């Protein structure tokens, strides 16, 4: 047996990090952001956006944007989404500046209030125009907060989902289920923040961690690609003896997953398994087999595996999927999209225009590019193949400013930088690198009490060696 020297290491490669920004909007968003920062997050910038100066100053975010200096004068939006929207409009340039130069933007907001409901959709729009992949993490208010507040939240959610590539929605009511009935109210509220924090971190890790089997933007997109962009999300972590099983159970326990029942209808499920160097193939096998029981045969499973020394003994599972439109409708009971689309906002009109072109609508990612800045359009190979319509129009990047100085929706840049290829290559390199680690150590064949007897070799296998060793099935 050839054993790799433990000290042997490959020359360090420059790993290309994808610039990621985490943006919080409103008071609830700030809380979530603080939690994310406190839980520890690397390789991502955090931006806090709020109307309320007081809460902004206490935030731990490195970059802060105050909205509506004249509209709200440093106070909150007073629970009125219109005030929040106007404040965002006033500070549009600052927002854009803060969002520039990132390829992936996470927006955290609590919907139902003024700033979160009013400004978050606008921030999402700006983020999208900056050419980034936008994923929004929002909380919906408790039922006891009143019908008005809930209605505001629903409306904001619908608007947000127009701009964001995906919306991960946490209902506070369901968060309550996660905490024990005797737990203090702060714990119940913290639960929402913790969930958001976990989701953001796991997606960031998903993208940034060099994987054995890498999950890229393309995988994430196909997992999230639905008309309504409502997202199923689960994250679990365990370091117990039976960690594969426990981590998956925990991931499925996430209120967004409904114990895996909702997975049955999903067409794409993205799964990433991350673990320390001790993670074994059989653990991954067990986990994927168990997960397989929750999804249908037609479901495409996008699988990623990552070895990350920082995880130590823990094994983490991230499951991301999206509901198809019909399930979404039954879930929300009220079809939000059509009812809101009639509202007269310049932004929405633009979107309705885009909705007339089905291909464009389905490939939202490639639709929006901001030509004002030199942003690299991150057209992933999969996305490009899926929409061959994007190939023609070999003209210069056309800039047709509209009222807000934004480009027309249906226009894209044909300028294709070799980013996808580079990324693919990088992915291949990355997957090659960890494969050389001593992750799965080859166990020397042991025959126990049959050590000195004549070996029984049938069909090329030494039957004296325990079956579970030969089949690499972990029994303990």
């Amino acid at each position, binding site marked *: 047996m050839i054993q790799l020297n433990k000290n042997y290491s490959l020359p360090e490669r420059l790993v290309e990090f994808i610039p990621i920004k985490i943006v919080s909007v409103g008071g609830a968003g700030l809380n979530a952001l603080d939690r994310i920062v406190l839980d520890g997050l690397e390789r991502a910038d955090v931006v806090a956006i709020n109307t309320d100066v007081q809460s902004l100053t206490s935030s731990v975010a490195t970059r802060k944007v105050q909205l509506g200096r004249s509209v709200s004068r440093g106070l909150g939006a007073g629970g009125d989404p219109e005030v929040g929207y106007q404040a965002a409009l006033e500070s549009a340039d600052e927002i854009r500046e803060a969002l520039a130069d990132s390829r992936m933007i996470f927006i955290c907001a609590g919907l139902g209030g003024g700033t979160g409901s009013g400004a978050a959709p606008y921030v999402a729009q700006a983020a999208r125009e900056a050419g980034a992949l936008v994923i929004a993490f929002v909380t919906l208010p408790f039922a006891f907060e009143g019908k008005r507040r809930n209605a505001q939240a629903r409306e904001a959610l619908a608007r947000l989902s127009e701009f964001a590539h995906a919306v991960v929605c946490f209902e506070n009511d369901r968060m309550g289920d996660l905490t024990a009935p005797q737990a203090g109210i702060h714990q119940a509220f913290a639960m929402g923040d913790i969930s958001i924090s976990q989701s953001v971190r796991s997606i960031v890790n998903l993208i940034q961690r060099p994987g054995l089997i890498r999950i890229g933007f393309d995988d994430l997109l196909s997992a999230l690609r639905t008309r309504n962009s409502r997202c199923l999300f689960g994250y679990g972590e365990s370091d117990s003896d039976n960690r594969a099983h426990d981590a998956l159970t925990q991931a499925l326990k996430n209120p967004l997953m409904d114990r895996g029942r909702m997975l049955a209808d999903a067409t794409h499920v993205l799964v990433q398994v991350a673990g320390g160097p001790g993670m074994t193939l059989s653990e991954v096998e067990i986990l994927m087999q168990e997960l397989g029981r929750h999804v249908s045969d037609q479901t495409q499973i996008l699988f990623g595996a990552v070895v990350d020394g920082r995880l130590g003994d823990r094994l983490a599972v991230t499951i991301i999927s999206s509901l198809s439109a019909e399930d979404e409708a039954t879930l929300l009971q009220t079809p939000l999209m059509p009812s809101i689309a009639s509202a007269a906002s310049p932004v929405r009109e633009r979107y309705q225009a885009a909705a007339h072109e089905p291909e464009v609508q389905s490939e939202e990612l490639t639709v929006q590019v901001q030509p004002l800045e030199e942003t690299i359009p991150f057209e992933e190979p999969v996305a490009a193949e899926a929409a061959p319509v994007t190939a023609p129009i070999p003209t210069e990047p056309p800039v047709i400013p509209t009222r807000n100085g934004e480009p027309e929706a249906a226009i894209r840049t044909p300028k294709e930088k070799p980013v996808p290829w580079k990324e693919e290559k990088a992915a291949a390199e990355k997957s090659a690198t960890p494969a050389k680690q001593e992750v799965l150590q080859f166990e020397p064949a042991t*025959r126990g009490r*049959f050590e000195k007897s004549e070996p*029984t070799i049938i069909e090329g296998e030494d039957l004296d060696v*325990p079956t579970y060793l030969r089949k690499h099935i972990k029994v*303990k």
Partner: protein
Amino acid sequence: MVGLEIGTSKICVVVGESRPDGTLKILGVGQAPSRGVRKGEIVDFETAMKCLHEAVVDAEQKSDVMIKSVYVAVAGSHLQSFNNRGCVMLPEDRDEIDEQDVEDVKINAREVSIPAQNAFLHSVIQHYQVDGQQGVLNPVGMLGQKLEADFHIIHGVRTRIQNTIRCVKELPLDVEDVVFSGLASAQVVLTQHEKDLGALVIDMGGGTTDYVLYSEGAVRQSGCLAVGGDHITNDISMGLRLPMARAEKLKIEEGSCVLGNCLPGEMILLKDDSGFAGKEIERETLNTIIHLRLREAFELLKRRLEEEPYLGYLGAGIFITGGCSLLSGIDYLAAEIFEIPANLTHAQAAWGVTSAVENPQFSTAIGLVKFAQVMHTDRPPRGLSRFLKLFSGKR
């Protein structure tokens, strides 16, 4: 009549007598734990002899019989089998088949090349054909010109078979005959009716798994796989890091090969003992180890048996005997893998010491006595396989 089996886990001597009505009565069973035997074959001559002596003394005391000669069972992975057809033409001036012709056809059937160091152990008649007429059971006295016979031939390495014989003769006891242990088990486990319907006997002992497949009353396939209960114990011992004796005890007391049948996290507490600090182990882990080993053994067996088409014609099903058949769930596992109903069974065609007869561990030894009875009786029951004495010349 005495049957002697030198097994991997125990040596067992069964004393029986044939009743005038043709039944078999077991007078006594002597046994001793076996040492110096691996996978059905003796590896430590001295130790094995001591154990053998203990077992014989035990049997003599229990049955109050002086043992002089025994039938000995042999097993081991070196045993192989095949089917072959022999053919003789009668001389021009004679057209009635006599017993000499039947002997001749048997010798003719053996005229095949087997490895030089191998010797024939059994030639079991399947069917005769007279002038192309199929399915003749006893051709003596029939008229015909051409006699053909299909035989199932079992052979093995001569020296290895002789090792067993020598060990017994050193005791000293006379060896009347050596019999393949799987064949011996099948004699008492199956009824004639089941043999006719088609049945597979799996005798899973300590060191080996012997199998015999019957179809239309005749042996079609047989063999020996050198995997047995010892392997399960070894797997448990290595997987759970237990001493061998503990692992054996755990297997017998708690082992099962059914998966998913226990509560998640159900633990088994092993009490501490001298030289062994107590330990808690998960039941599912134990069962998984057993399950994987047995599944592999059965799958291997299935692949071997599928080389010929008989597996699809088992009307009576699978009969599992031997020490391993005491493992709970083994019949379900076998039924699942072979997709044929499987039964647990023990010696049927005998009476006497009930506890012995009903213990599947003694199937082979009782089968030897049954075999002896058949050999001694002048008129062997119709269809029961007749064997050729083999080693008389060499002893």
